[in-house]
């Protein structure tokens, strides 16, 4: 069945902008990204939007739908009453480039600061022997599709631009947790993540977990265990003496 969908889409650039009304024909079973594509094809060919896979796997089409951070490709129109106006705005924590496209370079800067995987002295060369049960914890975090919705929603930076310098954000706390829990990683990044990446600024309100389209338990499985492990290294005199990993596993 086809019906006319009323939408308001934020249009503008770094100098300013506002909501613009569009009405486009949509079909049952379509998602918000389809509606945006109809706007491009029929009403505004130059409407800026990022997208790639259209299947929730690449994390490109992040935006705020009626104020809620979501992937447009995974938001079905059937979730919204047909007579309701749907409002789409760009992610708020990042500077607008144009329309729904934001400057997410903050995340790439933080990514480059992560000391990468470094095999342990016990197994320096692949193929490694690792048990499924031991890789699973890190595998959960490697499901991350880098949509940056968690970064966008995190109140530490959402309304506090000045915190960005010292805060890597939930996406990178799960990256540090992934490396920390990798069964064959030999580097200790616990002091780094606490002292220089802002782990301590997170007060575990779980906003990030709520918006994760991959349903990664960011707070419970990554941030809280990391905070506990940081306590271990900072206040345990025995561990403090031997900084390399190995004995640290919980």
């Amino acid at each position, binding site marked *: 069945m086809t019906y006319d969908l009323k939408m308001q889409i934020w249009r503008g650039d770094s100098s300013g902008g506002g909501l613009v009304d569009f009405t486009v024909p949509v079909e049952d079973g379509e998602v918000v990204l389809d509606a945006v594509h109809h706007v491009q094809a029929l009403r505004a*060919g*130059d409407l800026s939007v990022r997208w790639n896979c*259209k*299947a929730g796997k*690449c994390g490109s089409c992040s935006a705020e739908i009626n104020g809620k951070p979501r992937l447009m490709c995974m938001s079905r129109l059937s979730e919204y009453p047909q007579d309701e106006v749907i409002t789409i705005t760009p992610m708020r924590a990042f500077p607008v480039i144009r329309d729904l496209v934001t400057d997410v370079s903050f995340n790439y800067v933080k990514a480059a600061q992560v000391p990468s995987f470094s095999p342990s002295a016990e197994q320096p060369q692949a193929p490694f022997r690792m048990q499924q049960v031991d890789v699973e914890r890190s*595998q959960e975090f490697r499901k991350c599709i880098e949509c940056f919705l968690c970064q966008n929603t995190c109140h530490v930076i959402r309304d506090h631009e000045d915190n960005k310098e010292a805060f890597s954000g939930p996406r990178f706390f799960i990256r540090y947790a992934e490396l920390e829990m990798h069964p064959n990683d030999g580097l200790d990044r616990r002091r780094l993540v606490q002292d220089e990446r802002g782990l301590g600024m997170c007060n575990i309100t779980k906003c990030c977990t709520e918006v994760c389209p991959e349903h990664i338990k960011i707070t419970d499985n990554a941030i809280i265990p990391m905070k506990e492990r940081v306590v271990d290294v900072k206040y345990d005199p025995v561990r403090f003496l031997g900084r390399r990993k190995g004995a640290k596993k919980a």
Partner: protein
Amino acid sequence: MSDYERHSYDVVVVGAGGAGLRAAIAAHEAGAKTAVICKSLLGKAHTVMAEGGIAAAMGNVYSDDNWKVHFRDTMRGGKLLNHWRMAELHAKEAPERVWELEQWGALFDRTPEGLISQRDFGGHRYARLAHVGDRTGLEMIRTLQQRTVELGVDVFMECTVTHLLKDRERVSGAFGYWRESGRFVVFDAPSIVLATGGIGKSWKVTSNSWEYTGDGLALALRAGASLINMEFVQFHPTGMVWPPSVRGILVTESVRGDGGVLRNSEGQRFMYNYIPEFFKAETSDSEAEGDRWYTDKTNNRRPAELLPRDEVARAINNEIKEGRGSPHGGVFLDIASRRTPEFIQKRLPSMYHQFKELADVDITKEPMEIGPTCHYVMGGVEVDPDSAGSKVPGLYAAGEVAGGMHGANRLGGNSLGDLLVFGKRAGEYAAEYAAGLGRDRPEIAEPDVEAASSVALAPFASDGGENPYTVHQALQEVMQDLVGIIRNEAELTSAIEKVGELEERISRVSVEGHRQYNPGWHLAIDLHNMLLVSESVAKAALERTESRGGHTRDDYPMTDYDFWGKRNLIVELGGDGHATIRQQPLPEPPPELAALLEEQH
């Protein structure tokens, strides 16, 4: 002209999927000053969509597996039209490339012994695909992305290359624009590696994203390189069919590899009616034998659902055509009745998620509705197997954009291996070539830059012309209706005519707005590439008067071993700017490899 930014590198890699990133890592490690350019953000390339796994004969699950069996499976799956040397290199080197990913931090699923687990897939004799649930491509791209960043390779994100530049016969650089600002950028580089992926966006029902517009193929043709095997396009048997907005989205072959079966509206496992002579000896002849194979591969043969993709796609197409399809025009893919919900959720988490959220279907309780979707082009830039070099000095190609490795049909799992093996080779040889030039580096001619910039700006020159989105839809309809799974002379001839008409419409495209992040403009530029590639596919398909792999002609339904079995089709750019086709003898494998192809297992 307007000012532009200028950069100088030894090696410029166009594309940041698996092949591009692996090439960039290799070129950087070989000492070349290297840059990667990609149309999207880093980490969003199409590789992310690959689900099943990386085929590599590591022998972790079946110790009988080795490169020779993998080579044989690849060649037979490709209906023997593969370049034997590429299939050989791929089979030999894939295991090393997988272990390398593990060395860089990838976390594959494990066997009980703690090694990398390997799963079953169509056309592979043994469980061979290294995997992470059903999100292997994501793991691969993230690992390569993190490695690229760690090494400090320069990445130009959201930057599109529209022209390759040459100094006489040699490549001298590339011209493109920043999507964000619309400003132009010129790269001086004696070596260019094309890693731009495929062409699926010219079809209506496709698993491919907006990026898959055949840019690398068109760039290569215009630079004087040749394409090979362009008539072979893979329609993946299992794409979603409902709801309409997700039509074409991939449903991984792992569903069948892990025990799922195909049924028609009468509940029949119809694949048992479609086992071709070529695969009879290695395919089970009863459902019971097929079911036993999952746990005992020594005494049983593969289920018919795990025939190569071309066979399965044609069978599904036929069931639908003969009226035994599902309510939304597909057939049923059933794993719910065959495996426990726990097993399904563990092995196929993204499929569970995808169907639950996009189609309201719980795949642990009910069958999926699926149908064929345009997925992959076997054809591509004709390259030297060892170096990945095209016939243009300094121009290399790796991954889906390159041709020859997969012959007439690609086996599932062989794409990710291809990206790694030939990505690395392309990067290394591109670096070596650049280093060998010394001071004799090619130079960019300023008039060529001027010309490239005026072509790119043409869509802004007029008002009220054709809408690029409308023309794109028209092209998709032509290719879907006339150059699909089943082809014939009348339809292909008509397709070539219609593509010609679209060329005229594309020349009249105009776009609204300005140059900053303007998707209408970007599409207007990409359309030229889609058109040239579509013409290449249609013309090659018309020329090959037989059926083989990803090319089926209902007017020539038989495979012709004597004539077409010994020939490749080569596409080149004629003086009039159109694709021309010529035949070329197929390279023959040396006797010791040819003998492997005859071996029965």
